[in-house]
Structures are given as C-alpha cells and as structure tokens.
C-alpha cells in the first residue's frame, strides 16, 4: 500500500513522468490497436470471435526473430512476417475457421481457443520457452534530463504500425476486394446474390487479419519481448478494445487501443509491473460490465 501511495505521489511531484507514461502507452497501444483491428475485421465480416489472435501476433514475432537469427536485417522481418502469417492464416481458415462460420458463436470461440493452445505449444517446442527480442541497435533519445526516454526503435515501430494501418484502410476503402469485404460484412446473402464469392472473401479476410497480426508481432519483437505463452493476453486486449469500441468503428478502435495502452502503463506504474496482466483482464471485465449496464437501460420490461 505504501508503495502504491509513493508511486502516486511521484506522479504528482514530477508531472513529466506522466508524459513518459503516456508516450509509452501510446506506442504500445498502437500495436494493440492493430491486433484489435484485425479482430474487428474477422468478427464483423464472418462473425467469428478469434481467441487465437494473440498467438498470430506472437507467431509473427517469431518469424522476424528467426530471420534475424539467420543473419537477415531486422526490418525485413515485418514484411516477411506479414507474408508468412498470411499463409498460416489461410491454412487455419481452410482447416478450422471455414467449418465454424455458420455455427454458433461459442463453437468458434472454443475452436479458436484450441487453435491458440496448439499454436502456443508448437512455438514452445520450436523456439523454447525463453523470452526473446530483436535488438535493432539504435540509440535512445533523452528529453527532460533523461526522465523521458524514447528508443528510436520504438519510434520506427510506431511509424511502421501507422503506415500498415493506413495501407489497410486505403485498401479497404478503394480496392475491389476491400469493397467486397465490406459488402459481405453488411449482408453476406445479398453479396452472394450480387456475384461476390463470399467463401473467397472469408478466406481473404482471415488471411489478412492473420497477416496484420503477424506484422504487429514483428514490430513487437523489436521493441518488446515475446514468449510462446504471451499470446492469450494479446487476444484479451484485442477483445477489450473491440468490445469497448464496437464493430466497424475504426476511429473507436484506434482510440480504445491507445487508451488501453496508456491505462495499462499507468496501472503498471502505480501497482507494479507484475500486475500488468491482471490490469488487462480487469479492464475487460470493466468494459463488459459497462456494456451490460448500458444494455439494461435499453431493455424494456413490463412490470
């Protein structure tokens, strides 16, 4: 308790620390927002809640890490992870996801949970259970007498995340496939009538989601650490963000992603780093409860 109070008073005495926490939170939150955008895409288009989302992120990180171990430049990892995870996403779609689209939501939740366990264990066998990261070897920028420090690697990561997001948004807005995806999300049956091959759209959407997650993971491995079993916490964060923002609400997803990044950093600062996972999950419960109360207000009952 004393620790918590002293951490709080630190925030008040040195306001500049807040700036550091907010910046850290935004940088991390940008990556959460990417994974959450992929989840919202799959959720909205094919009504599948993908609990393996976090494991796609971690797998992308391992692709990048593996390349660096074999002498490739680190920045190549992001496009490489995008391509490899595209393939893995396609295989996962054909084997599992395509068979649960028409079923009830709990089925897809459980099937992707099983997929998540499998992927985490395979990564554990292939790469070991140690935490891994890729060192880009760039400097760190210091501001305000070294209280606020920004590693250049993190800046590059955020820029890459932003450009990936912009690329995906432009693709969804202007390309034929993007239009077909949006049409399928609105009304799959009408889209079929209009000559859209929805099966192809589903496969494409899921692969795209997996590729976005992979690229996010490749960025995360440059600025943070990954470990085979970290996946589930990314999946939970993605759920928090999508549940808080709602489907098909892109600005909302970005805002919620950054917000959760900042909240988590504050929580980790105040309560200690070991509470970070717990805070992510408690935020989920909080968001669910708020939604519940909102819905109860809408529900009309005869008494």
């Amino acid at each position, binding site marked *: 308790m004393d620790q918590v109070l002293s951490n709080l008073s630190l925030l008040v005495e040195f306001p500049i620390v807040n700036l550091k926490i907010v910046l850290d939170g935004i940088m991390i939150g940008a990556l959460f927002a990417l994974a959450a955008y992929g989840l919202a895409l799959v959720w909205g288009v094919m009504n599948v809640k993908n609990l393996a989302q976090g494991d796609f992120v971690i797998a992308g990180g391992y692709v990048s890490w593996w390349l660096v171990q074999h002498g490739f430049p680190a920045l190549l990892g992001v496009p490489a992870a995008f391509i490899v995870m595209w393939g893995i996403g396609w295989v996962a779609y054909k084997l599992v996801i395509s068979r649960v689209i028409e079923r009830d939501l709990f089925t897809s939740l*459980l099937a992707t949970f*099983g*997929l998540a*366990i*499998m992927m985490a264990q*395979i990564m554990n066998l292939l790469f070991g259970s140690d935490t891994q990261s890729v060192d880009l070897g760039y400097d760190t920028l210091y501001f305000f007498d070294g209280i606020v420090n920004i590693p250049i690697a993190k800046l590059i990561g955020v820029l890459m995340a932003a450009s990936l997001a912009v690329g995906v948004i432009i693709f969804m807005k202007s390309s034929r496939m993007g239009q077909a995806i949006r049409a399928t999300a609105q009304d799959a049956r009408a889209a079929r009538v209009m000559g859209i091959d929805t099966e192809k759209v589903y496969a494409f959407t899921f692969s795209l989601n997996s590729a976005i997650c992979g690229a996010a993971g490749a960025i995360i491995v440059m600025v943070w650490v990954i470990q085979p079993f970290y996946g589930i916490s990314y999946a939970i964060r993605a759920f928090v963000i999508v549940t808080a923002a709602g489907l098909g609400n892109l600005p909302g997803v970005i805002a919620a992603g950054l917000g959760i990044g900042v909240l988590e950093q504050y929580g980790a600062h105040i309560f*200690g780093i070991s509470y970070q996972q717990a805070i992510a999950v408690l935020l*989920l419960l909080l968001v669910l409860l708020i939604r519940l109360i909102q819905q109860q207000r809408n529900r009309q009952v005869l008494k």
Partner: protein
Amino acid sequence: MARKKIILYALILAVTFIAPFAFPNFGTQLATLWLMIIVALTWDMTGGQMGYNSLGNIFFYGTGMYVAALISIGRVYDIGDYTSAAGGGIFEFTDVQYFSGLFLGVISAGIFCSISAVLIGTLTFGLRGPYFAIGTLGVAIAAGELVSNWDWVGGGQGISLPGYPGHPDTGKIFFYFLFAAVGVSVFVFVKWLYGTRFGSAINAIRDDEEKADAMGIHTLRYKLITWAMAAFFVGMAGGISAFQLLHFEPLETAYQTIFLGIFMVVCVLLGGKGTLWGPVIGAILFHLFKEVTWNYFLGWQWVALGALIVVTVVYFQDGVMGWLMHKRPEWFGIKVEEKIARETK
C-alpha cells in the same frame, strides 16, 4: 428394464470400489479421472442443461484449493508465517489436525465457492452467449493473476501442504475414494435434479430465456442457484486436489485456465452436451487420450491435446451420446415412425 439398470449401476459401483486395488500403479490417474468426471458433470449443469457456456468454472477449482489449504493451515498456524517459510518443514501437523483440517477445509471450500458463484453470477449472468464465456474466462484469469501477486497466500510460489500422514500408497487410495465419493454424489445429485421441475426450468432457460421469463420462471434466480450448486462440487474437488498434490501455485495449478479449465468443456463436448452420461463418457475418453499421448508423444502431447480440442469442437460437436442418439434412437426411448420417416425423406 429397471432391473437391467440396477445391475448396471451396481456393476459401476463395484468397478469403482475395486479399481484402485486392481490397478495400484494407477491410483493417482484414477483419482484424476474422477476429478475430470466431477468438473465435466458440473460444467454440463450450466453449459449443457442451462445453455450458459462458462469458461471460468476453473475459478472455483482454484479458489477451492486456496480456501481448503488456508483454512486447514489457519486453524493451527499463522498463515503469513507459514507461507513465508513456504512450509519448509518447520510446521508439523498431527494426524487429528490433518484430517479435521482436510474435511473442514474441503467443506468450507465448497461453501465459499457457492457464495462466490452467486456474487460473480449476479454480475455476469446478464451477459449472453460468447460474452458470458469471455467474461467468466476473464474472472478466472484475473483471479489467478491477483492471487499470484498476493504474498500473504504465498504469491507466485503457491502453498505447500503436509503430506498424508501414513503410507503413501494408503494416501493414494484415500484420495481416490474422496474424489470417487464426491463424483458419485455429483452424479446421483444431477440425475435426481434433471428429473425435477428445477431441471425442466433450467432446460427452458437454455431453449429460450425470454419465453421462460415470460412463463414466470425467475431466470436469474435459477441461473444463480444452478451455478452455485456446480461451484459447490468444483470447490470441494479443488480442495481435495490441494491436499492430494501437496504443493500448488496460482497460475499453472490452481487457476489453470488453459488446462483443466478448457479440458472440462472438451470432455462434455466429446461425450455429448446436455446429456446425463455424456460428460462421464467424455471424461473417460479424454482422460485415456491424455494419458496415452502423455506416454507416447513425448513433447508433443500438448499439441495433440490442442488438436483433439479443435477436432472435437469442429467435427464432432454432438459427442458420443449425440452420435448414438442419431444412430440408435430406440435406446433412448425415442420412437421413430418408419412410415413418417420415409415420407419426410
């Protein structure tokens, strides 16, 4: 028919009694099998019969472990002293202290879990479908993370409990019969429960909650009572596990969300959701599969288990009972009118 059933039940009871003596080397595995049957049957109470798929029933297992351990320790020593020494041999329990602590701990674990089920349920039962599953999963994960940061109850190190005061082989049989007793009581209880008005009410909630509400069923009350009953048994099973395992820690043993927490769901799906025998058959099949992969797919056992989960959920969701019901409807007292069946085809 009735006599056949009595013979069948007598046979099962006889096997239950003989099994640990016939296969003394598998004492612990057999006890774990009963644990799987208990958690599968209780999961089916809400998941199969009431339509509320919880992924957080493991919360009661973990909480039961902690409550049972803390109560049995707290009666004799100061808990903070005990956990900070990690049970390092300084703290001894007499036989009387051990057994009275065990029984008191296990019973209070059940009661505590029932109360917490009512509290958590009041908050989460407004969530429907997958939101309920994710919400309860969140409760279980959050509880594990918070307990692992709580130093008074041992933090991430967990708690060590004293061993069974007697020969280890007797201990194995002792714990087997504890689990078996709880398991048989769960089975008898749910068999009775599903035949009553209460059983029909929760089935009505599964089939259409709004209509059930309109028919005058207090849905929230029924949901809370059902979950509390399930939590009572899971909490007791957790309490027994704590003493059987001797040592447990929060994330991988107590609140083992991705292990037992998901296994219980797969057991039920494998056997057949919403049936009396399904969870039992599923638990036996799953446990066999798990032990076989453990012995022959060294290193890849978890991947094989994950694959089993995916295959069960995607391709075999009706389970053994659903498949049997489809193939042999007459075994379940369902009469298929040959003529109508042919005409509708």
